């Protein structure tokens, strides 16, 4: 797998909130294929055996990332802490429904945190759709080994993302991790509004094209 490159140092020039960690140093299990399956296995163990050691390992890996994710989206420190904890409690409670053939642990946990945040913003207690709802996430076509094909999918997406020029990749990050309007991004980055718009357009269409191409 392609290793980290400098362009992935997304130093979002906008502010001093946590930046993306692209240096895969010791103890970092982000990057390697096998480690991603390890995360899946830990989550499966929590689901099947209520394994507290496995949960503790998941907690150390994900809780600080969830907190960072929430902070970037403009959640205040205390709420980010609470929501990260609530999301992890949900991870424990829902672990039984985790199916590595459908989603990786990171995607599954991202979805829980995403929903928790929306729930909190709306405060209406309305249940949110999630990855286990077939109406929202239709079944993938049956294959010999779904989990492997799903991981290959993730690798493709990651590769497509890395092929994007830096300024376009930043816009994708901003879409997920910045609670900012295009106007604010334009103001903060000093770019003309039209440039911000065309970058996001390009990023989206390139991402789509690259993922599509890899399929053929």
């Amino acid at each position, binding site marked *: 797998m392609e290793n980290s490159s400098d362009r*992935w140092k997304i130093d979002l020039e906008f502010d001093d909130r*946590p*930046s*993306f*960690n692209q240096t895969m140093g010791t103890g970092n299990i982000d990057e390697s294929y096998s480690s*991603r399956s390890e995360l899946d296995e830990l989550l499966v163990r929590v689901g099947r055996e*209520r394994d507290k050691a496995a949960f503790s390992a998941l*907690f150390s890996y*994900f*809780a*600080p990332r969830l*907190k960072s*994710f929430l902070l*970037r989206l403009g959640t205040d420190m205390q709420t980010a802490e609470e929501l*990260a*904890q609530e999301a992890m409690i*949900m991870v424990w*409670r*829902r672990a039984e*429904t985790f199916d590595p053939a459908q989603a*990786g642990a*990171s*995607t*599954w*946990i*991202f*979805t829980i*945190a*995403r*929903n928790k945040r*929306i729930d909190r913003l*709306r405060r209406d207690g309305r*249940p*949110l*759709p999630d990855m286990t709802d*077939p*109406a*929202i*996430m*239709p079944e*993938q076509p049956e294959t010999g080994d779904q989990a492997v094909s799903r991981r290959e*999918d*993730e690798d493709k*997406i990651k590769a497509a993302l890395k092929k994007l020029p830096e300024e376009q990749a930043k816009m*994708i990050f901003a*879409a*997920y*991790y910045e*609670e900012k309007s*295009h*106007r604010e991004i334009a103001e903060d980055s000093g770019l003309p509004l039209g440039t*911000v*718009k065309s970058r*996001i*357009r390009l990023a*989206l*269409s390139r*991402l*789509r094209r690259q*993922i599509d191409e890899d399929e053929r």
Partner: protein
Amino acid sequence: MNEQHMTYELIDALLLDYAAGSLTRPLEILVETHIALNAKSAKQLRQLMQLGGILLEEIEPVSLSEGAFDAVMAAIEATPSDLNDNRDMASETTESEFGLPRPLADYIPDLDCKKSWRRLGRGLSQYRILFDDVDIEANIYRIAPGVSVPVHSHEGTELTLVLAGGFSDETGSFGPGDIAIQESGATHQPVADDDGECIVFAINEGQIKLANPIGRVLSYLVG
């Protein structure tokens, strides 16, 4: 701009905003209904959720407060382990009796009731969906085969998802699962296809301009 292009961009932006969790509830429903009708978008949304997971792996961690893990374990142990939180496991069917895709049908219990519909003209009726705390207008329209809706313009940006049948206007032809966009102030005259009733779900950001009523990425395109 090429019509096909605009549609792709619109759908890309909607799906990305959905994955990132930055849409209002009415637009979430529009997206959920769209992907129930369009397998390609369903797949793309799955990829964008995976992208969210990948980005989560990439983010620089921020330590939790001391004792956070113990607090979480205490909360877990305070609740019986067999009491799983599965309130939102949706039922397996994806269509209501009315034939609408599930996410939308669930939101509109009385769609079959005649009284819920307001007649706007010959062959054209409207069902208004009210959302709490969201200043967005959402309507379902039924247009009889071949009927031409009077020329009109919209105050805010309007997104129209075709649920059944199809229609054409100055910008193109739209079938089930397609999403048409009308920018604020634009004028159009939709005409329903001849071969069946056309049912659409339309969302309008309304008169009051919110900072980002239609999603962050989407606003990059139409803002």
